[in-house]
């Protein structure tokens, strides 16, 4: 099923949906919403569509989804015939995927909020958000370190799932919130592997791993 994505280019949660759609080669229509400075996502007509007043929103026929994790599941279940991104045939991996999807929404609340504060001057208790964000990065680093010791390149196994996409966005964007990846080698390697995936999509603040592109310069 094709869909319309109500989208804002700098939003990490919108980016998750664009990224998975690109990786799975799904075409869709973008409706850009003036999140900043217009606050169009708080307008009465937008609130009629999504009472939470948040982006993204996915619309397809009568289906309206207002949570990015739900959108990732909806897209993967329809378009990933191998069932690796939404691993319905592997109980353990599926449960892990749901667990890390839960974690990804905590990242929106910590790193995502700190980033809005840093970039758009949103009032916030920056010190508390910074501590929470570091706690979350450490939790992710601990898990990714164990995964790579076990020979598993991604959050829930050897293959990436929707949970990797969901956690990737705000982790990759954490430098926008003043938190660099320098001291997190496990996270660094994982970010690099996701950026090397075939069909990877960038956004402002998240660049492709140029080194995987065909060398089109005379160099080397």
């Amino acid at each position, binding site marked *: 099923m094709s869909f319309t994505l109500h989208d804002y280019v700098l939003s990490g949660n919108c980016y998750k949906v664009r990224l998975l759609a690109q990786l799975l080669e799904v075409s869709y229509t973008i409706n850009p919403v003036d999140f900043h400075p217009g606050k169009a996502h708080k307008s009465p007509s937008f609130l009629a569509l999504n009472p939470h007043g948040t982006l993204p929103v996915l619309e397809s026929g009568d289906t309206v989804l207002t949570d990015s994790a739900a959108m990732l599941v909806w897209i993967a279940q329809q378009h990933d015939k191998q069932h690796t991104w939404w691993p319905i045939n592997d109980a353990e991996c599926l449960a892990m995927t749901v667990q890390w999807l839960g974690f990804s929404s905590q990242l929106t609340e910590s790193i995502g909020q700190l980033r809005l504060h840093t970039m758009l001057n949103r009032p916030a208790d920056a010190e508390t958000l910074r501590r929470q964000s570091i706690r979350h990065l450490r939790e992710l680093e601990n898990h990714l370190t164990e995964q790579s010791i076990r020979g598993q390149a991604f959050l829930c196994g050897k293959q990436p799932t929707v949970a990797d996409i969901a956690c990737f966005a705000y982790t990759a964007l954490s430098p926008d919130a003043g938190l660099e990846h320098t*001291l997190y080698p496990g996270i660094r*390697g994982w970010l690099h592997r996701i950026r090397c995936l075939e069909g990877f999509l960038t956004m402002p603040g998240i660049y492709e791993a140029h080194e995987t592109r065909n*060398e089109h*310069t005379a*160099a080397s």
Partner: protein
Amino acid sequence: MSTQPVSLSRDLTIKQVMRAELGDVDMAVWRSASGVVSAWENRCPHRGMRLSHGFVRGESLACAYHGWHYNCAGACHYIPAHPELAPPKTIKANAYNIAEASGIIWVNATGNVAPIDIPSSTVPVRSIPIACPVESALNGFSKHTHQSLLTQHTQAEIIADTPYVLALTPVGSNSVGVYIAFQHVNDSTTVAHITATDNASMNDVVALSRWANEVRDITEFSAGVSE
């Protein structure tokens, strides 16, 4: 400044670039496609962009800003805006002395690099940052035992002090030993680069990774910082 560890070899795979800080020295450390590791001042000779934002193209590091290419000797050999030009030999990245030994990448920003000789072959565990001075980290890792691997009968010995390297040797044959090389990032940040003796199983390495996280929490708590 002395020789310092900056990463486990495992954590800098080919074509990866990372940033490392040693006091006031900010560096880009990268591994070429064929595996050559270099550590340079984190400053592009062109306009000063951080080279750690760059990307690896084969045996060169390309700056993220205007794409100048530097080879493993640090020499600029290609300027995309002037593809016909052979860049002057004076355009060079400022390279530091580097060595890879015992599964660790060692750098000296001001002199010759002298890696610490870790006695036996090792397997990588993890590099973990601790928000405290190097002495507190050293103390924390010397004291906190692990119930099955690093028991009360473990002997803790400082086998080097510039930089600090700690050897934890449990009593008993076949027991897993641990080596920890401490990177002095600044007075409030230390990174512990941890390896184990090569008789460690995968489950032992996972257990040591968790142990390191616990020691970090306890050490930061007693140093009065908790992140």
